[in-house]
């Protein structure tokens, strides 16, 4: 109970970010980049083991944006010119221009690479069909629904391949699900296509947004575990679960990934105990609010350490 994990992405060390920039400009060979991606993946696996995290991740050192990464490896997508996301930040948004296909497995090789490095289970990490659709332009499919369902087919194939390779945990992230509550049913249908028939434990991570509107349908999500950010909302989200017998496991984000401040162990323990008044201990998985990629490597390690130490302390108290 109170198993610890992380949401997916971990920060890239400086040697990797500088090399990625150079590789984009064609100044560095793809093989050199790959070697550094493998090096930092090894380092992160080792760090997670040393910290004592129960379910580890590969840290997504080889991914940029969580949607663009899949779009780059799927057929039917092309990259757009720059669009602004906020302030002075721009990105290239994928455009669906043809039938979506998966020429070959996308994440399986990296999953295998990471799993060979550790005895702990490594989570398979995918981006969900609704989010890929919502964060792309669509010039090919007649509707948002048609595009979402087409993406669901290829993400399902990817999930199957991860399971076949041995993944015991498969997380399908749907951060966009909270944007348009009127499309929640579509997101649920598409996620169902991905997870149907999987024996691996399935998880979805949702963040940012109109929780009040999607809350009532949370129990319909076709996954074993729903992972949510609690820390950056002062654990107010717990109120939603109070007095309900929520039928799924809950991934409990206990440290804020957008804040430089490292939470204290006591603070996280106190919040975990608060959660235990509402949820059963075997129902809870403990992790940061979201991917840690925006923090410095040092901050990420310290945040993960607090997650593990607090979860351990509470576990001890429950057992004795």
């Amino acid at each position: 109970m109170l198993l610890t994990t992380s949401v997916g992405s971990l920060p890239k060390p400086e040697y990797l970010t500088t090399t990625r920039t150079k590789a984009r400009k064609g100044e560095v060979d793809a093989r050199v980049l790959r070697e550094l991606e493998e090096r930092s993946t090894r380092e992160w696996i080792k760090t997670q083991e040393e910290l004592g995290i129960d379910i580890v991740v590969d840290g997504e050192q080889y991914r940029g944006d969580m949607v663009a990464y899949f779009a780059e490896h799927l057929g039917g997508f092309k990259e757009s010119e720059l669009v602004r996301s906020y302030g002075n930040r721009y990105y290239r948004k994928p455009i669906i221009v043809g039938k979506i296909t998966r020429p070959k497995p996308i994440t399986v090789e990296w999953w295998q690479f990471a799993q060979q490095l550790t005895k702990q289970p490594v989570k398979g990490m995918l981006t969900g069909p609704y989010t890929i659709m919502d964060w792309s332009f669509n010039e090919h499919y007649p509707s948002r629904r048609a595009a979402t369902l087409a993406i669901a087919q290829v993400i399902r194939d990817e999930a199957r391949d991860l399971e076949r390779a041995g993944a015991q945990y498969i997380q399908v992230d749907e951060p966009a699900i909270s944007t348009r509550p009127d499309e929640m049913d579509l997101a649920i249908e598409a996620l169902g296509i991905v997870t149907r028939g999987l024996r691996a434990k399935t998880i979805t991570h949702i963040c940012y947004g109109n929780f009040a509107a999607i809350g009532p349908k949370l129990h319909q999500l076709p996954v074993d575990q729903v992972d949510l950010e609690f820390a950056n909302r002062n654990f107010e989200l717990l109120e939603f679960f109070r007095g309900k017998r929520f039928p799924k496991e809950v991934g409990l984000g206990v440290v804020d990934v957008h804040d430089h401040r490292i939470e204290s162990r006591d603070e996280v323990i106190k919040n975990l105990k608060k959660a235990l008044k509402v949820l059963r201990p075997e129902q809870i998985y403990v992790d940061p609010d979201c991917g840690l990629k925006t923090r410095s490597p040092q901050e990420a390690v310290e945040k993960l350490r607090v997650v593990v130490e607090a979860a351990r302390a509470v576990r001890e108290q429950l057992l004795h």
Partner: protein
Amino acid sequence: MITTVVGNYPKVAEGAYSTKLIGAISKWQRKELTDAQLEAVYQEITRAVIQEQEAAGLDLLTDGQIRWEDLVTSLAKHLEGFEIDGLSRWFDNNVYYRRPILHRAPVRKRPILVETYRFAAGCTKRPVKAVLPGPYTFAQMSEDRHFKRLRPFALRLAEILNQEAIDLARAGAPLVQFDEPALGFGRPDMKLALEALGAATKGVKAKTAVYIYFGSLNGALEPLLTRAPVDLVGVDVVSDPKALGALKRLKVAKELALGCLDARNTKLESIKGLHEVFRAVRRLVPSDRLTVNPNCGLEFLPHPQALAKIRRLTEAVRTYPGASTY
């Protein structure tokens, strides 16, 4: 029919007026560029997007809101009483804005947009409209720690926006537009929205407009099209597929601006499809009271597709057989 854009336009164009604004802003933030140097880049890009709109054949232009990060902070950061906070989602888009927090009664010390409006208007012989956030949306998208009630907050913002609108009209803006996307979400307080809009447009010696986009039009459509204290109402008929049908059941008492190209998707509309939309509203308003534009600002699109959309719009109007008869 008049062709226009709603407000913003891509700030960068890899194949046209460059991406230099990104570097200029970063350098300015690091104090490696002076205010005057950044201003020169803003002016250069503003001029380029105005020329591009002109060349595409639009009748009524905007400055492209090249200096704006989003609809509300561009005003709020110049008002006393506001602090600009962290990122929040911009309605149902995967785009973020900085949420203004109101700590004390807001005060406008001096005109905010007048100088940049004058610059933009000087870049072209075509008319350039001025765009402001609507008071209701401005209030809804801010966090109010002062009034703690929507009504006094929205009405106070309406007074401030009114001063700005009056000054913009005095600077020559033929049309002052108020954007109210918040009316497409939840259950908007239409009585308050109309009252605030009335306060914002009072005594403005120019044509006035309200634009709504995103979401669904819920109960907003009928009150706006019959009673809004403005000359022109802009309606997004792309985001809500039911909007066009709903529109046809109403008596339109205002000039109508039809948001008929999807500025949130790169897929280019066909001329035929646009003509069908034009025909669908021909009995609602005579063509001299009809404006056509994309459904919202063009900045959600990469530059080539944004330009393609406005070119397609003007082409559709040029080739519309009904253009001369209605």
